[in-house]
């Protein structure tokens, strides 16, 4: 079994790449920490009763004045930083993953159909993609946020914040998937196995989903990984700009924005610990994306 596994090129290359292994471990650890945050985290940062101002601004446990109760210190409200970070990562990751999934479905669906059907449908989808490209991701996301503020009453807007942010990120990322899927479909379409399926009279949906889709998974997987990283960055940026998630349910970006107030003071941990956490997460995901890209592009090795 192990030898058969090692014959697989991807697995073999993975075992030779310390960077990829490290990245995989880091990603898994963070994802697990985020997923199990309610069970792992020492306190619940959303529960006002679980922290008190008396514990405010405590440094991490290894610093002078630190308390072993708060491994990574506390913020001005006395909230445990570790718990905040785990819950923040949970929020950031689930928004990013949801946004990525929506973008994937929308983008791959449109790209697949555009590449396969060609003609007018393709032209329309690509022109929409052009417009989307002229309005970069952050701009799109900001706009959607702005629109939702204009349309929705204030309370509803606050309630729907996570949904709005997720949709905003998804809408700014679908183009990547659509363009990649379309380009790959063009390559596959010219191959004879697709001609054979068309000639036999198979249903176009069956040809797209059962014949072509499995053959373009590689490049899509790369885009999905890279876009997951972009989605995390985008969410963090929006929250940093103050249009993302509010301070009472902080994501990683919100934590960093709050931390910015302590840039000039001595409480470095409030800013830098969430920042380092965010960067490590994104670096790890991007490293995996790089590994996948090299895997599907053998010439680049």
């Amino acid at each position: 079994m192990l030898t058969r596994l090692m014959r697989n090129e991807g697995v073999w290359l993975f075992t030779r790449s310390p960077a990829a292994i490290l990245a995989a471990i880091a990603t898994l650890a963070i994802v697990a920490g985020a997923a199990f945050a309610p069970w792992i985290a020492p306190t619940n940062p959303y529960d006002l009763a679980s922290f008190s101002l008396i514990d405010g601004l405590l440094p991490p446990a290894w610093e002078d004045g630190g308390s072993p109760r708060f491994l990574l210190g506390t913020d001005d409200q006395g909230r445990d930083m570790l718990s905040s970070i785990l819950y923040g990562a949970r929020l950031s990751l689930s928004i990013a993953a949801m946004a990525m999934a929506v973008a994937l479905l929308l983008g791959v669906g449109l790209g697949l159909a555009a590449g396969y059907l060609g003609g007018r449908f393709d032209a329309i989808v690509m022109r929409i993609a052009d417009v989307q490209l002229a309005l970069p991701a952050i701009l799109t996301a900001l706009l959607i946020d702005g629109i939702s503020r204009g349309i929705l009453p204030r309370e509803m807007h606050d309630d729907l914040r996570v949904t709005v942010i997720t949709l905003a990120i998804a809408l700014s990322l679908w183009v990547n998937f659509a363009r990649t899927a379309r380009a790959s479909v063009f390559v596959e379409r010219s191959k004879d196995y697709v001609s054979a399926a068309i000639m036999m009279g198979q249903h176009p949906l069956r040809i797209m989903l059962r014949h072509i889709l499995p053959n373009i998974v590689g490049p899509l997987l790369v885009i999905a990984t890279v876009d997951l990283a972009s989605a995390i960055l985008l969410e963090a940026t929006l929250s940093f700009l103050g249009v993302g998630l509010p301070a009472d349910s902080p994501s990683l970006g919100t934590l960093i924005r709050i931390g910015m107030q302590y840039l000039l003071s001595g409480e470095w941990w409030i800013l830098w610990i969430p920042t380092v956490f965010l960067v490590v997460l994104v670096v790890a995901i991007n490293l995996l994306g790089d590994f996948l890209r090299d895997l599907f592009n053998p010439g680049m090795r």
Partner: protein
Amino acid sequence: MLAVEGLSVQFTDRFGTNMAVEDVSLSVDRGEIHGLVGESGAGKSTIGAAIMGLLPAAGQVTAGRMTLGETDLRALTPVAAHRLRGKRISMIFQDPQTSLNPLMTVEAQLIETILAHEDIGVAAARARAVSLLEEIGIANAKDRIRAYPHQFSGGMRQRVVIALALCSNPELIIADEPTTALDVAVQAQVLDLIRRLASTRGVGFILITHDIGVIAQVSDRVTVLRGGKVMEQGQTLRVLGQPEHPYTKALMAAVPPLDRKLDRFHLPRIAGEALPQAETDTARVAEDWLMAGTGSGPGPSLDLSGITVRFRGERRGLFGPRDDFVALDDVSLSVRPGTVMGLVGESGSGKSTLAKVIAALVHPAEGEMRLDGAALPPMRARRRADPSRRLVQMVFQDPYSSLNSRHRVLDVLSEPLWLYGLEPDARRRARLARAMLALVGLDASAADRYPHQFSGGQRQRIAVARALLSRPGLLLCDEPTSALDVSIQAQILNLLKDLQARFGLTTLFISHNLAVVRQMSDDIAVLKEGRLIETGPSEAFFAGPDAAYSRDLLAQTPTVRFDMRAV
């Protein structure tokens, strides 16, 4: 001049090392053309790269001596080796479409190469470049030298490539499949040019090719390679005329002759190679199933009349007319029931387009098709459930792209049975698929594997099995063997001949190779630039074609002359 002794090249990959070239010795004299011939994996290109000092990073020369005149090629530093390239050894690549820098004029590329090796002025270099282009057969070279590569046709581009290889007056040129990407007529001209340059300029050539016809036509001496080892070496006439090594004999037996039609290729077993043993009992199941469906009568007749295909071109200017490309122009053709119609023509003649029109992959602008007298609707009118979908099947050229690499062979083969409702029960579909594999000469266990685990020839067998599993009446074969080695080609041709005869399949067999077509067809049709040049019984055609174009085509096909053949 060039002497290679005991050359071994080793490639290292993650599974370990393997010898790509083992103990190869050869020599090339001034003005001599030395052919390296062999099937894929024979190591011919690796030998060329080793002499050039351009092996890929994973490759390494492990033993042997290579000397050019007094120079020991293995002892050169990288800098000295690069200085020697072009100056004393140069190279011609296979595809003239990609061998030239698209962003530089031919002039700039020529002058740069000359100046890289000789300390003469730009004006002198330009003068030499112009006269070289003239010598190589480019008319009006003075003006055309200023053109970009994309402004030349394929054959002309290969001449420019040769001029580039030649402009620094090297002693030796390694030509790696220099005519494989070219049409027969252009191939003949390029081979003539190489022959002429060898004799007038005294340049030595190493001619790497898989095509024995090319070797027979131009080379003085030949080395037959297999699996990185030399099988046989000597004067071309002797090696091809009286081959001694069993491998050479087998290779010669597999080359389709242009001058007669064989019933079957007689393929002697080569030592150490197991011929596929069809399991007759299993295969019988598939055979009976096919017979039960089609009966014993011959397949349907196919009649095409006035087929015209236009592809939309680019607009000339902003409001100018479109440069529509006429791929097929009023082609009328009939295939008699149960016979093979061979369709030949150069690239761009529209032969594949015709097959696609019949298969409903391309929509004809005009024309009518009939299958056994009943109207065969064209692409846009052919419904998915049209009965002709099942009756008309196709075997494609490239076995690496015609099977979905993400599907198991069993899924590939079961698909037509399921799609056409031929076999409702999944277990029986699987059984039939395995039986069909046995019928086309593969092990039934092949069904459980994926296409990438098979060689090109085996994949083509799978493609044939897929076509048969829809119980077809009409089989379209679009260059089914042109991506295959010659010995595999012979096996596939034998298979197609057997199946065609046994099941009376009406067949349209497309190839650019006249010799292959002769082996397969009862009738023949010649296409040129979308027009039908002539059609008629095959044997009469090869005895003496009517049209001048057909005569040229026959004359230009490189052949292994009858007196040289061993059989």
